[in-house]
Each structure stands twice: as structure tokens, then as C-alpha cells.
């Protein structure tokens, strides 16, 4: 194992912010650590002598020209990861974003997580209708082409399935990756029409309290949403990161409820029925309800909790050499913006403030990082987020103490990544 030069280590020790190697975040912005790469600082000493750089082959051959729809480099192929569905029912299931390989805050459309209950419908927008009816003055039907003529807004929002991180509530100790354990969260710029504009066009009657939103997939999946949310910041989203919403995200249009459990943002939206009471759909009774130790179950748990996660180094990665690492991850909250992210390298005994690298938008992912010097000793890396409402991300023990282990939904717990002396990173429970 090669260590960084002694002089550099000593200087950095002065800037320790927490035990076990966490260093001041200002080093990430300073020239002193200019060489500290994504994975680790290259040792100053021990460089290969006699390197002679030559012009590479690709600089001597003209490449292919433009393409109608670009793709990623053959050397940087990222993939969603699908779970094992029911073989008799291939359309149901989920796929997860490769969080450990992404940077910044925006999830590319091809890598946005998916959850379908009856596969992706092949919708021709010319035949798709959005109907608003029920407790309205005038039931209305909208064509896709007409909806494109409305005033739109664009907002960056995270979307998280309330089943995300549910595996951590099981008794077992899943040897997973950031993707397999937490990949049911993504973040995109969503462009669309405030739902309130369309509801007001139909004229909501005073006795209305809820809306039922139904998709045009083969499951005609439905969810009940309080009218207050629908009139506040819900969107009829038509675009995702600038292009028409992807089929697996609801093309030609989806409901988007910022900050709320993903399933409420009904894809392929075709029906909005304004009602007095919730409709008690299967996916808000049988599923997406949280059963507590006393066997009562929480229903209509909408906002996603404040949460963060170290994406690098993370499960099944390996730190191969002592030195300085950029520990980085993402944080988000359904209750507002992220105010602070702290990182611990000693399993939560001491914490240091991470640098927030991105904008701190409401209900959107932020990217954080902090330098960490690994000296080859065991460590447990954790991150802990605080949101603008003052909510602090809880430990796994606190989540289990509050909600037990029957429940699989809404788990915002602090993720602990253990690093052993061989540098192997795994999910650990403390």
C-alpha cells in the first residue's frame, strides 16, 4: 500500500473535521488537493519515470459524423438494474438508477428508475385523452396537441419510490450496491402545466376534497390525491429533461406530485375524477401502506422524508490504496430543500460538514462531497442530511424503533458503508 507523502498528511491533519480521516470540505475547492481525483489521490511519489506521451490512434482517424439521437460512449455504458419480476407477468416490476456511477444531480432519462404495474403502454398521443370530471362545473376532455399550447413551468424535482431502501428494514443484511439498495430515486427537470390551471378550467366545486388520478396502462393504476396538493404544486408533466416524457415515465403525460411518494405521480395520466373522499384504490390500501408493530397501518403517507446517501465509495466498491478520497453522495427531502449534509467515518460518533456542490433546490437532489483520508484502518462511512424544515435524517435503529420491521415503505435511514482493512465496502448495520 502506498501512502501519500508525509508532509501532505501532516498539513491535512490540521484540517481534520471529524475522526477517522474526514478533512475540511474547503480542500475540495482548494488547489492543494487539485490532484485528488474521483476515487483517490494519486501518490505524489512513485510515478512511472520515462513516460513518453504519443498522439493516440483516434487523433489520426476521422470518426463517424452526427447521429439523430446520441448515445453514451462505449467506454461509459451505464445501466438500470431490474429486479426479478413474476415470470407470468413480465410487465410488472422495477428498475433502479446506477447511483454509484452518476455525478451531479440530474438523472439521464435513460437511467431514471422505473416501476410499472402492468408494463409500459404503447400510447399514440393522437388517441390519448385526459379527462377531468366528477365534482366540477363542466367535465372536460383534453387532447395532447392542445395541452402543448398551454403555459408551462419547468422545475427540477426528485422522484422516489416509497419502497426505496426497503430492503434495509428486512432482518437480513443485504450485500448490495447504492443502486440495488437505494436506486429507486432519480431527479429530472419536469416541464408541464400546473394541474391547478386545468382543474380551474373545469371549475372545482366547493365540496371537493380529493382527486382520483388514473393511468392509461393495462392496470389502469389509480391513486387518490388531496385536492390541496393538486391545487398547490402538482404538475401535468409533458417533458422530462427537455424531451417528451419517456414511455416508461408516462408518455405522453404524467402527473407529478413534487416531494411525494413516487407512486402518486401517476404515469400515462388519462383520468382525473374530482371527489369528496379518497377512492381506496388497491395501490393505496393493499400496497403503499405502512404496517406498524401494533398492526395498525399508516395510509396516505405522502411526503418523502429527508434522506441522503453516500454513492462513492459505496457497496461492492473497493478503495484500493491509502490516500485522499472524495466521498460523495446525494441528499433530498420532500419537505423542502437540503440545508446541511454531515459525513461520519467512524459510524456516527463524530461528524464533519460536507460541501454541497450543487444548487439547493426545493424537493430536488443535491450533490455533496467531503475529502477523506483512508489510512487502511476499518471505517464506517455515513451521511446525515438536514432539510429546510429542520428535519434530520434518522438512524436505522430510530426508524425501526418507530415503525418496526413489518413495514417496507418510507425508509429514510442513514446508510452505513463499512470499509474493511482490504478496502472492501459493504452495507453494514451498527
Amino acid at each position, binding site marked *: 500500500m502506498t501512502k501519500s507523502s508525509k508532509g501532505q498528511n501532516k498539513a491535512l491533519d490540521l484540517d481534520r473535521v471529524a475522526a477517522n480521516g474526514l478533512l475540511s470540505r474547503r480542500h475540495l475547492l482548494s488547489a492543494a488537493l487539485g490532484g485528488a481525483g474521483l476515487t483517490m489521490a494519486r501518490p505524489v511519489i512513485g510515478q512511472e519515470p520515462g513516460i513518453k506521451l504519443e498522439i493516440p490512434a483516434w487523433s489520426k482517424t476521422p470518426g463517424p459524423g452526427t447521429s439523430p439521437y446520441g448515445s453514451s460512449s462505449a467506454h461509459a455504458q451505464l445501466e438500470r438494474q431490474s429486479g426479478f419480476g*413474476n415470470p407470468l407477468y413480465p410487465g410488472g416490476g422495477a428498475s433502479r438508477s446506477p447511483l454509484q456511477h452518476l455525478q451531479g444531480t440530474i438523472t439521464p432519462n435513460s437511467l431514471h428508475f422505473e416501476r410499472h404495474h402492468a408494463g409500459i403502454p404503447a400510447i399514440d398521443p393522437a388517441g390519448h385523452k385526459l379527462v377531468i*370530471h366528477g365534482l366540477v362545473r363542466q367535465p372536460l*376532455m383534453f387532447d395532447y396537441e392542445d395541452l402543448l399550447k398551454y*403555459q408551462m*413551468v419547468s422545475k427540477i424535482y426528485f422522484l422516489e419510490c416509497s419502497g426505496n431502501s426497503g430492503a434495509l428494514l428486512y432482518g437480513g443484511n443485504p450485500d448490495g450496491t447504492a443502486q440495488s439498495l437505494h436506486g429507486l430515486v432519480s431527479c429530472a427537470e419536469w416541464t408541464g402545466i400546473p394541474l391547478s390551471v386545468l382543474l380551474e378550467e373545469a371549475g372545482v366545486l366547493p365540496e371537493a376534497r380529493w382527486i382520483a388520478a388514473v393511468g392509461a396502462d393495462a392496470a389502469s393504476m389509480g391513486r387518490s390525491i388531496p385536492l390541496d396538493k393538486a391545487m398547490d404544486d402538482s404538475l401535468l408533466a409533458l417533458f422530462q429533461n427537455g424531451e417528451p416524457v419517456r414511455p416508461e415515465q408516462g408518455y405522453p403525460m404524467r402527473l407529478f406530485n413534487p416531494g411525494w411518494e413516487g407512486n402518486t405521480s401517476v404515469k400515462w395520466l388519462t383520468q382525473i375524477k374530482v371527489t369528496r373522499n379518497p*377512492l*381506496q384504490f388497491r395501490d393505496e390500501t*393493499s400496497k403503499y401502506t405502512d404496517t406498524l408493530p401494533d398492526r395498525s*397501518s399508516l395510509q396516505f403517507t*405522502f411526503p418523502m422524508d429527508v434522506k441522503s446517501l453516500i454513492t462513492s465509495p459505496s457497496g461492492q466498491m473497493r478503495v484500493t490504496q491509502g490516500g485522499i478520497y472524495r466521498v460523495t453522495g446525494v441528499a433530498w427531502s420532500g419537505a423542502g430543500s437540503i440545508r446541511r449534509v454531515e459525513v461520519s467515518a467512524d459510524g456516527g460518533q463524530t461528524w464533519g460538514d460536507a460541501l454541497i456542490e450543487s444548487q439547493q433546490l426545493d424537493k430536488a437532489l443535491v450533490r455533496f462531497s467531503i475529502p477523506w483520508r483512508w489510512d487502511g484502518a476499518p471505517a464506517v462511512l455515513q451521511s446525515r442530511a438536514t432539510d429546510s424544515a429542520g428535519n434530520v435524517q434518522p438512524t436505522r435503529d430510530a426508524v425501526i424503533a418507530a415503525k418496526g420491521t413489518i413495514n417496507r415503505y418510507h425508509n429514510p435511514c442513514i446508510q452505513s458503508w463499512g470499509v474493511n482493512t482490504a478496502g472492501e465496502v459493504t452495507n453494514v448495520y451498527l
Partner: protein
Amino acid sequence: MFTYKRLLKASTLAAYGVAMLVSTAQEQVKLGQTISEASLAEFDLIAEPGGMGFPPGTGTARQGRTIFETRCALCHGSNGEGNSAATVLVGGNMQSTDSPLRTVGSYWPYASTVFDFIRRAMPANAPKSLTDEETYQVAAYVLYLNGLVAEDEIMNAQSLPQVRMPNAEGFIDQSHIQ
């Protein structure tokens, strides 16, 4: 040059934090086509807990057995025992010492959801292929397998939503937290 008049629906846009000036012409974009509730009779599949939205028709569990065996048992087993965690339709007890098996019988708070869900989403390999009559029959059969109705009890728009579900009181509404 446009003459921008005023903020469009200040209340709406405030929620988005977007300062957006809109011309008078755009302000009047209202392209919804009027439609009557009657014309949505086939389109609206919502069957409500209070009985609204249930179609005409009747069915008993005895009539539903054959449909279940031919159209549902492939994935749910002849007795609703399922072939995966997601396809168990029968059994469980919310007060069991172990983690409770949560099914239509042990967990679901409303019988209306059984009809509503089967009509919109099942059988999973051919959703919406059952007639309303068949849906009543097979919904009755699922309730019967769970011991919630008798084999010859007639299920229709009035009786089905009234079926007493054991875990009806088991849910705590959190919708005030937004």
C-alpha cells in the same frame, strides 16, 4: 413586441417560484372540450367504497369458481394461495405473532377495492377482458375464499361494498401531512 399585461394566476405560479409574464392572448388558453358524465360510463372504472360507480349485474362465488380456475388460478393458485409474494389472495391474520401475511382477507379495508381492482387490472395477462357479470362472480369468489361471504350470497352494486372486512378499522389516515 409583446405587451405583457399581468401575472397569470398569481396564486398558481407563486407555488412554482416562477416569475412569468403572459400576454392576454395566452392567458385565455382554455382548450378543454366539454364532455358529459354519461359519455364516460365505459371509460370511468372507479367503483367507490360508498357504492358509486358499481355497474349493474350480480354474481355469486359459486358462479365465480370456474372463472377463477380458468382465468386466475394460473397465477393465484386454485385456492388463491398464489405463486409469488405478490399473488397470494387468501389467508393471513393481522394479529399473528410472526410478521402478518397481508391479503384481501386479512388486510384490505374495503370490499369495493376487490371489485374495482379486478375490473381495472385483472386477469393480469388480459386486463378488462371480463364482463361486469363475471367480475361480480369472481370478486365474490375471492371474498368467499377468504370466508367473507357465503357461496351463494348475491354480490351486486348494493351488497358488495357492504361486505365487512376484518381489517376495516386497521388504517390511520396520514393525508393531513402534506
